[in-house]
C-alpha cells in the first residue's frame, strides 16, 4: 500500500464513517420521534431533498451556511406539518402519503432549482472545526475531533433525544400515544396534537439532514442529491428499534461499512465494485437478521387514531 500506513487506513475509515453517519443520525432520530408517536413518515427522502435545496439556496443567496441550516429546518418543519395534516388529521394511509410527499418534494426541489438558479455552482459550507487539544490526540483525534460542527451536533443529539424521550413528560406522552393511544386519550392527552408535533419535529430534523448534505458535505446542489439516503434513514429507525442508542449503532454500522467499501476500492483491492457498493445494505440486513429476535415496536405505529372508533 506504500504511501499510507495500516493505522492511517483504519483512522481514515473510522473518520469517514463518522462523517457519513451524520445525515442518517439527524433524519433517523427525527423519524424515531414520528414513529414513536405512531406515525410512519416515508416522505423523509423528499423532505431531505427540500432541506438540502433550502440550505443550499440560502447559503448561496445570503452567503451564510448558518442561515442555510435555519432555512432547511424551517422548510422541513413546514413539510412535516403537511405530512401531519394528511396522515394524522386526515388519517390517510401513511406509507402512501409518504411516497406522495416524496414525489412532490423531488419535483418541487427540481423545479425551484431550475426556476431560481438553473446551473450547478458551489455555495459556502462549513469547514471542519478541529477541537483544540482533543484533535491532537493520536488516532482518536483525527477520528473524532476533526469534523465540522454539524457532525458533533448530530452525535450530541443522540443523548439529547434519549433524554427527551425517556426523561421528560412530553417524551412520556409521545411513547404513550404510540403504544396505547386509547389509554392516553382517556388520561387527557391530545393524541393527534402530540403526533403532529412529532411529525413536525421529524420533518425539521430531516430538513437539517438535507442541509448537512449541501452545506456540510458537498457544498453544492444537484438534482436528486439525496440519492436514496432518506429511505435508508427510515430503515435505520427499524434497525435501531426506535431507540436513540440503537439508531446511533445502526447509522455507524451502515456508514462504517460504506466508508470501508470506499477505502477498499480506493486501495485497489480487487473486488467487483458493485459488491462493494451493496456491502452496507447486505450487512444491515444480515446484522438485523442475526440480532436478538425479540423486537419491540410502537404498537400503534401506522394506525390512525379515531376517537369514536373502538
Amino acid at each position, binding site marked *: 500500500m506504500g504511501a499510507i500506513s495500516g493505522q492511517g487506513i483504519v483512522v481514515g475509515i473510522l473518520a469517514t464513517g463518522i462523517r457519513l453517519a451524520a445525515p442518517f443520525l439527524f433524519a433517523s432520530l427525527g423519524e424515531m420521534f414520528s414513529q414513536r408517536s405512531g406515525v410512519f413518515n416515508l416522505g423523509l427522502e423528499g423532505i431531505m431533498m427540500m432541506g438540502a435545496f433550502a440550505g443550499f439556496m440560502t447559503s448561496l443567496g445570503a452567503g451564510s451556511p448558518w442561515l442555510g441550516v435555519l432555512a432547511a429546518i424551517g422548510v422541513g418543519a413546514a413539510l412535516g406539518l403537511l405530512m401531519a395534516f*394528511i396522515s394524522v388529521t*386526515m388519517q390517510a*394511509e401513511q406509507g402512501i*402519503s409518504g411516497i406522495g410527499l416524496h*414525489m412532490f418534494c*423531488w419535483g418541487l426541489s427540481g423545479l425551484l432549482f*431550475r426556476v431560481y438558479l438553473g446551473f450547478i455552482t458551489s455555495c459556502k459550507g462549513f469547514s471542519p472545526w478541529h477541537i483544540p487539544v482533543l484533535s491532537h490526540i493520536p488516532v482518536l483525534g483525527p477520528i473524532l475531533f476533526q469534523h465540522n460542527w454539524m457532525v458533533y451536533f448530530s452525535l450530541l443529539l443522540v443523548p439529547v433525544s434519549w433524554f427527551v424521550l425517556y426523561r421528560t413528560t412530553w417524551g412520556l406522552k409521545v411513547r404513550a400515544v404510540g403504544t396505547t393511544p386509547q389509554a392516553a386519550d382517556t388520561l387527557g392527552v391530545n393524541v393527534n396534537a402530540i403526533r403532529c408535533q412529532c411529525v413536525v419535529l421529524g420533518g425539521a430534523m430531516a430538513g437539517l439532514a438535507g442541509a448537512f448534505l449541501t452545506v456540510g458535505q458537498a457544498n453544492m446542489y444537484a438534482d436528486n442529491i439525496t440519492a436514496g439516503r432518506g429511505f435508508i434513514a427510515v430503515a435505520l429507525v427499524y434497525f435501531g428499534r426506535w431507540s436513540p442508542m440503537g439508531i446511533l449503532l445502526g447509522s455507524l454500522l451502515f456508514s462504517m461499512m460504506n466508508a470501508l467499501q470506499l477505502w477498499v476500492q480506493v486501495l485497489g483491492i480487487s473486488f467487483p465494485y*458493485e459488491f462493494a457498493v451493496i456491502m452496507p445494505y447486505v450487512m444491515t440486513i444480515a446484522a438485523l437478521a442475526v440480532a436478538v*429476535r425479540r423486537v419491540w415496536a410502537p404498537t400503534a405505529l401506522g*394506525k390512525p387514531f379515531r376517537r369514536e372508533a373502538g
Partner: protein
Amino acid sequence: MKKHTGASDSLLQVGVLVGALVLALLVGAGLILLARASPIAAYKAMFTGPFSGRYGITESLVKATPLLLIGLGIVISFRSGILNIGGEGQMIAGSLAGAAVALALPGWPAVALLPLTMIAGILAGAVWGGIAGWLKACLSVNEILSTVMLNQIAFQLNLYLIRGPMIDPQEVAYGTGCPQTALLPRSIWLPRIIRGTRFHWGLVIAVAFAVLVYVFLWRTTIGYRMRASGAGPQAARAAGIGVENYQILAMAFAGGFAGLAGVVEVLGVHHRVLEGLSGGYGFSGIVVALFGRLHPLGCIPASILFGMLTLGADMMQRAVSIPAAIVMAIQGLVVLFVVGSDLLIRQPDLLRRRLRMVGPSIAPAGGAAGGNKEVNS
C-alpha cells in the same frame, strides 16, 4: 368483510376522488405558473395528449401494463397486512431471470421458451419478495427495511450482470460497453396488438391476471385466510390461521407479480434487459393499487388512468417546455390529495354530515351504509 355500499355512496366516493384530483391540479397550476408557462395550455396538452391519435392511447396502455401487474401484487400484499415497497427490485429480478433463461436456451421453440421465460421471471420476483416476507415472518425483520435494502441490492446486481456476465457481446466487441443484454430471441417477443406502436399483448395477460387475483382472493380458502391475516392478525391467529406463513406467501405473490411485470416489459417492449427498466413502476404500482380501492378489478381502470396521467404529464412538459421536475411534483400532489381524501371516501357518512352542516339539500338522503368497518392494514 365485504363492503356494502349503496349507489349514492359510490357516487359520493367518485365525487370525492374527482374533487381531490381537481384540487391537486389547481395547486399544480401554481407550479406551472412559477415555471412561466400557461397552466391552461399545459393542462390542455396533458388531458388531450393521451387521446390524440393512436400514439397517445397505445403509449398509455404500454405504461398501464406493468402498473397493473405490480398493482395486483400490491393488492394481495396489502390485503394480507404487509406493505411491499420492494417492487422495483422484484421487477429487476424478474426481468433478469427471464432474460437469462431466454438467452441460455436460444434454440428452443417459442411454445416452450415463452412460458419458461415468464415462469422464470415470476419465480425470481417471488423469491426476491419472499426473502423480505421470510425475514419478517421468521426473523422479525421489518419488511420496509428489508425491501428498501433489497431494492438497492437488486439495482447494483442488475448493473453488475448487464455490464459483466450478461452484457451483449457486441457491446464488448465494439468497445462501447453500454450496459445491456443481447436481444432476446425474436420468436418469443410478445406480439404487438397494433402494428407500428408498442402496444403489446402484455396488457391482455395483465387483465387476465386481474380476474384471477379477484377469484383467488375472494373465492379460495387461501385468499380468504390471507385477507383475514391482514384484517386482524390477532383474530386470524385465534381462528388458527398461520398469519406468518400467509405473510411470506403474500410477499412472494407481490414479488411474483412484480417479476412478471419485469419480464413482460422485456418481452413486450425492450426485448432485452437494460438500465432503468424498472423506471419507478414499483412505487407507482402502490398508487395504482390505492386508486383501484385495493381491488384487483379496480386496478384495471386505475392503471389505465395512471398510465394516461403520467404520459399526459410528460406530453405537457414537452408541449409547453417546462422542466420535467413539474411532472413529478404534480404526480406527488395527485397522490397526496387522493390519499388525503381517503377518509372521506372510506366514510361517506362523515362527508355527508359535513355537507349537511353546510347545506342539507346537497347531501343525498339515505341511511348509513352498513358495515363500514374498513379492512385496514
